[in-house]
C-alpha cells in the first residue's frame, strides 16, 4: 500500500500518531510516520492543509522533523530502505531541531505592492513603454533597499534571543520580507512582543507572525 511521508520522530515516539491513522516505519535511530495514500488521488488545498494539521499535532506531542508534502513510497519496505539510508543524518537533525519551532515572520507592504503592480499596465508608445520599465526598475530597487533595512531591524530585534534565521526580500510584489526564525518555545512570547513593538514603528509594512510550526525551513533534504 502506497505511503505518504508526514514526519520523522525518535524510535521511542513511533506510536505517537496511531490515533491519527499514521503508520510507523522504524529504523534504528529514527522512525517515519506516514499515511496510506491512493496514487490516483488528486491532491489539492485540503490535502496540503491536512498534511500541516497532522504534522502540527505530532509536533505538539513530541519533537519531530516535518516532511515536505509529496514524498510517496510504494510500501513500508521501500520507505524503510530509504529511511535506513538517511537515518544518521535525520537523527542528527532531529536532535538539533526537533524541540525547536519555526516562526514565520511576514512583512507585507501596506500598499499591497501597488508600485510594482502598476508598472505592468501596457504602455502606448515605445518611449512610454521604456519609461515605465525604468520607473518599475527604480521602484523595485527602492523597495529592495527598504526591505533590506527592514530585515536589519528584524534581525536586531531577534538578536536578543538565540535564534537562527533565514529570510528572503521581496519574494512577491505584496511582500517585503519573508523570514523564518527557529526558536525555543519559551522565547516565543518575548519575540512576539518585540516584533509587535517594531511593527508599530514601521509605517509601510504590516508584520504578521505565524506559528509556532514544526521547523519546515530548517529541516534539510540531504
Amino acid at each position, binding site marked *: 500500500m*502506497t505511503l*505518504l*511521508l508526514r514526519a*520523522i520522530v525518535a524510535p521511542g515516539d513511533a506510536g505517537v500518531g496511531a490515533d491519527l491513522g499514521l503508520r510507523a516505519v522504524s529504523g534504528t535511530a529514527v522512525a*517515519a510516520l506516514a499515511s496510506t*495514500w491512493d*496514487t490516483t*488521488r*488528486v*491532491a*489539492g*488545498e485540503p490535502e*496540503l*492543509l491536512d*498534511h*500541516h*494539521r497532522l504534522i*502540527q499535532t505530532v509536533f505538539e506531542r513530541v519533537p519531530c*522533523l*516535518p*516532511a*515536505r*508534502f*509529496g*514524498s*510517496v*513510497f510504494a510500501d513500508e519496505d521501500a*520507505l524503510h530502505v*530509504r*529511511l535506513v539510508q*538517511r537515518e544518521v543524518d*535525520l537523527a542528527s537533525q532531529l536532535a538539533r531541531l526537533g524541540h525547536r519551532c*519555526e516562526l*514565520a515572520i*511576514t512583512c*507585507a507592504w501596506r500598499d*499591497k505592492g501597488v508600485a510594482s503592480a502598476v508598472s505592468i499596465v501596457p504602455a502606448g508608445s515605445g518611449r512610454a513603454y521604456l519609461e515605465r520599465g525604468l520607473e518599475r526598475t527604480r521602484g523595485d530597487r527602492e523597495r529592495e533597499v527598504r526591505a533590506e533595512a527592514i530585515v536589519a531591524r528584524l534581525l536586531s530585534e531577534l538578536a536578543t534571543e538565540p535564534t537562527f534565521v533565514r529570510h528572503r526580500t521581496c519574494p*512577491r510584489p*505584496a*511582500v517585503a520580507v*519573508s523570514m*523564518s526564525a527557529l526558536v525555543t518555545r519559551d522565547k516565543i512570547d518575548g519575540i*512576539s512582543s518585540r*516584533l*509587535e513593538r517594531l*511593527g*508599530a514603528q514601521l509605517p509601510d509594512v*504590516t*508584520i*504578521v*507572525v*505565524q*506559528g*509556532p*510550526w514544526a521547523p*519546515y*525551513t530548517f*529541516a*534539510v*533534504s540531504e
Partner: protein
Amino acid sequence: MTREPATLDVPLVELVDRLLNRGVVLTGELTISVAGVDLIYLGLSVVLSSVDTIRRAGAEV
C-alpha cells in the same frame, strides 16, 4: 501585528510555500511548476491541483 498560532489562512501562501518547498524529503522528488497550468507534479505519484485557489488566497498579502 497579527499573531496566528498554527493558522491555516493568513497568509496562506507562506504556509503553502513551506509545505511544498521545505521540510525533509526522502525520495528526492522534484516539485515542478508548470507556468500557466494549475498543476504541480510531485514526482510521478501525486498530482496537486487547485493551486490557483492557494495563489488567490496568498495574493491578498
